[in-house]
């Protein structure tokens, strides 16, 4: 099945090649995508474009233990944490001002009420996305 499909694809590509022969050579250059022009730096080296957004990494903050018994229970049987005596769909971290706050990776304040913080996925996921975990 796959071999047939591949042959079919190649026939189509071969036909395209025949059509191509009739095209003017300059069309090759017209078809090329826009170039990201190198720019000169102060040191004289060339660089290419910048990322659209220069990401500011979140600092890794010291962990704060869950305490108070208010941990939310996720649908998959795992639990969140209890931080500042509030249910936290994430993990507690020590702020720069010494206080504790709830975060789930890129999401400050932890995940929303219909999500859980999945440590293995490193992100908030829907609490009804799967009843179970991503480990094999």
């Amino acid at each position: 099945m796959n071999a047939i499909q591949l042959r079919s694809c190649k026939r189509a590509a071969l036909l395209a090649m025949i059509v191509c022969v009739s095209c003017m050579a300059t069309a090759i250059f017209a078809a090329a995508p826009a170039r990201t022009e190198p720019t000169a730096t102060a040191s004289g080296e060339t660089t290419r474009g910048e990322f659209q957004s220069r990401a500011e990494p979140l600092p890794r903050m010291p962990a704060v233990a869950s305490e108070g018994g208010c941990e939310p229970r996720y649908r998959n049987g795992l639990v969140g944490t209890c931080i500042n005596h509030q249910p936290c769909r994430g993990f507690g971290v020590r702020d720069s001002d010494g206080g504790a706050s709830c975060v789930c990776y890129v999401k400050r304040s932890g995940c929303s009420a219909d999500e859980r913080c999945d440590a293995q996925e490193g992100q908030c996921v829907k609490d009804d996305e799967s009843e179970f975990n991503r480990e094999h």
Partner: protein
Amino acid sequence: MMARTQLCRAAIAGTAAYLLAGCSTLGIVTGNTDATASAAQSETTATTTYAGGKNRVLVSFNDETGNGANLTYGPSTRKILSGATLMGWALSEDSGKTWSYAGKVAAPAQWPVLWGDPAMTTSGASYAVAFLSNLAIPKSKFPSGGINGAVTYGSIGAYIGGACIARSVDGGKSFAIHQCFGNTAPSTNDADAVKGHFYDGGSMASTPSGEVFAAYVDVTTSKIDVWRAPNHNAQFAPIADPFPGLVAQTHARLRASLDGSVYAATTIATGGGSVVYLNRYVGGHWGKPVQASEFMVVYPAVNFGSTVAGAPLTVRTGPQFSFDIGAQSEDGHDAIRMLVTRRSASGRLYVEGSACSADLSNCHPVPQWHAGPSSAEATPLDVFNPNVAAWRGFIGLPPQWTSSFYERYGSSTSTVNLGRMYLNYLSGAPFAIPVDIAKKIPVCSDQRGYWGDYDDMLMVGFDGTTPAFVRFTGTDAGKGCSKRWTYVSQHLHVQSVREP
């Protein structure tokens, strides 16, 4: 004139696709005629060896073959007993055209379960010496009655407490446990951390001098733990954090360069989302980690909009980035080339490129290396799970940069296509054309979406003077998708797609 121009552009693209396309051949790695047919195999890592006058391609996978009573399933249950091992592998002695199942590594007494997420490498100092890593459950964390269901518990706890690395000194014909290790530092988050932190993923690399590296994401601390053996006979010991102070979200990937440098990459949490960061280990020290991608997705789930074996078909995914090290272009600053998966404004997944200089002083986007929908109406609908592989070239033979990825076509489907795209330049401008190299691969995930979180791609040799690459994928081996339970599906096996 416009129609002629469009026709010509289409023809040029088709011509390039034809010229770039090799002859793909499929190979059944597992599930065909041997003991693997009745069990599941998925999630691949691969390497090449040379021993006894034979070149071999080795591929390891989460191998459920032959676990018997140590790993049993019901429709919504799973029981894991001491002795269960997923550390199996297969090998090819004709550069990835045909395969034979090679066996499994038994779990050692102090680490009674070997739990997959395989990683492999071959010593740069001796191509007969290969390494194979699996996550592992230490005896100190293993419940006396076995594990029912998930291997995670509490808020961040897991029975997994480290990794075991097996070694082969005969080019992959046999493997034996070389070392098991874990991070046992206390953690505020997890009282059981002193028995071994929750490791996930796995990646290995070896330098030309024979240093061997292994990396895992330490879920307990959100760090990447890198272990190093100074030579292929030595024991592994932890080295410094490649991403100090940063929050690692996903598995790491390692690559070694011919100059002895080792590169580590992972997805890092930032204020605006997630991006790949890279760092370089040279002279016994890590440099400064740098941003190496645009914002990207972390472990997306792909909904296929269909029902298979009585359950909605979704596929969960592994780390959505891949990079390799190879020859740089004339303009330079692209000895490292990378693809990441991003999500468009319309919610579609696509892959997009970036590149870095070998010293990481210059990382930049390369949006022209792109595969995926250009609009909400376009097909394919989602492109994900990228792999990048390079061959450096040799005298008279040009270097090659290639990549692969899955494509979901159609709003309701039960298959994926496998695409390939060279990461090249045309007249000095970045240029890439995606080409399908395997179509309608049946997807048979379990009800968690598991279909093998990641697969490997590597250069396996030459056909004449043409470098040959193999990308591994899941397959039903022609047996259909007859069962999709919570923790297991059937049939789930491994196949190879080889070019040319």
